[in-house]
């Protein structure tokens, strides 16, 4: 199989080490964007009473910046525990979709491995790995290798940057506005994943609803935005489909 790949014939290639390196390489833009975000969160934690260990635990446990920031800031503000937990999980609900979307690519993996594969599921992983997998030239082992390469580089950078910022009390120079890096790349992800009119509409409606609902309790504005946007567009698409069927 290796010989096939190197001779340029269109065969799926398996060497997981090569796939691992490719995954790490492809996730690099994401890593560059999340490091400032991680440093900013680490510095925020440094400003609270949470302490170094709780701070690092929040980074390594939650592995999701927006939810972690929500949790840490609410803990510092003395918000009721139930409210904090509910808010953080609502912010993270989209992760369930990424999990469902990744599942077919790992369907043949043993359950034990799936338990590990689940760990780094986050926006940057989903939008890097799924397009790569869709090219269809990786074996199941190749996919695991690619995913592992991307995931380990991302997680190591994420946790490392936070641990550094928390323990050094590092501050990002404000004039650099590095905190914009993560939302910038996320916006770029939206730009790349809205090829159809329906997707563009869903993104637009979600943005408007998220803005309108930003003061809703428990971060439910996010949930309302996503469910509302998808609901509206699905209904609109179905109407157009049946209207087209009638005309035809």
């Amino acid at each position, binding site marked *: 199989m290796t010989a096939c790949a190197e001779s340029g014939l269109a065969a799926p290639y398996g060497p997981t080490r090569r796939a691992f390196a490719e995954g790490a390489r492809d996730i690099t833009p994401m890593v*560059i*964007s999340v490091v400032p975000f991680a440093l900013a969160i680490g510095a925020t934690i440094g400003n609270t009473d*949470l302490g170094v260990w*709780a701070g690092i*635990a929040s980074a390594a*446990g*939650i592995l999701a910046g*927006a939810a972690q920031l929500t*949790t840490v800031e609410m*803990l510092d503000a*003395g918000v009721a*525990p139930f409210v*904090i*937990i509910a808010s*953080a*999980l609502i912010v993270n609900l*989209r*992760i*369930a979709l990424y*999990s*469902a*979307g*990744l*599942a*077919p690519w790992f*369907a*043949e993996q043993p359950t034990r491995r*799936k338990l590990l594969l*689940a760990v780094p599921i986050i926006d940057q992983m989903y939008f890097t790995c799924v397009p790569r997998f869709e090219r269809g030239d990786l074996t199941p082992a190749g996919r695991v290798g690619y995913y592992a390469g991307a995931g380990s580089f991302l997680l190591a950078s994420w946790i490392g940057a936070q641990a550094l910022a928390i323990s050094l009390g590092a501050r990002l120079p404000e*004039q*650099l*506005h590095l905190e*914009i*890096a*993560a*939302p*910038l*790349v*996320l916006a*770029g*992800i*939206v*730009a*790349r*994943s809205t090829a159809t009119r*329906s*997707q563009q509409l*869903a*993104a637009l409606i*979600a*943005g408007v609803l*998220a*803005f309108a609902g*930003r*003061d809703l309790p428990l971060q439910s504005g*996010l949930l309302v*935005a996503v469910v509302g*946007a*998808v609901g509206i567009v*699905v209904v609109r698409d179905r109407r157009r489909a049946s209207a087209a069927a009638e005309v035809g």
Partner: protein
Amino acid sequence: MIEMVVWIVLACVTAGTYLLRIGGLLLVRDGQVPQWLDSPLALLGPAAVTALVVSIIVPSGGGDGASLAAIGAIGVGFVVARRTGNLLYSLAAGLPSMWVLSAIGL
């Protein structure tokens, strides 16, 4: 700050988030996402990430709103990503835009 509560909250958020992560992987068994999920899934990614971006740049709780500079910089990044499909170019264009726009007082 009561230590115990902090650890309990962190444990719950960690466990809950992990359940969200493992759920799909375990429940979607065969090589196919269930059909009824197909078109919502295509829409959910763009919707969820857009909502996330808005929630990051617009502070809740009646703050003074997102800075125009942030909105402008993100707009630049969006357009560059659309044109080039390259996220590094997005960063390379968006960050300096942020510096310029902030400097001129937006």
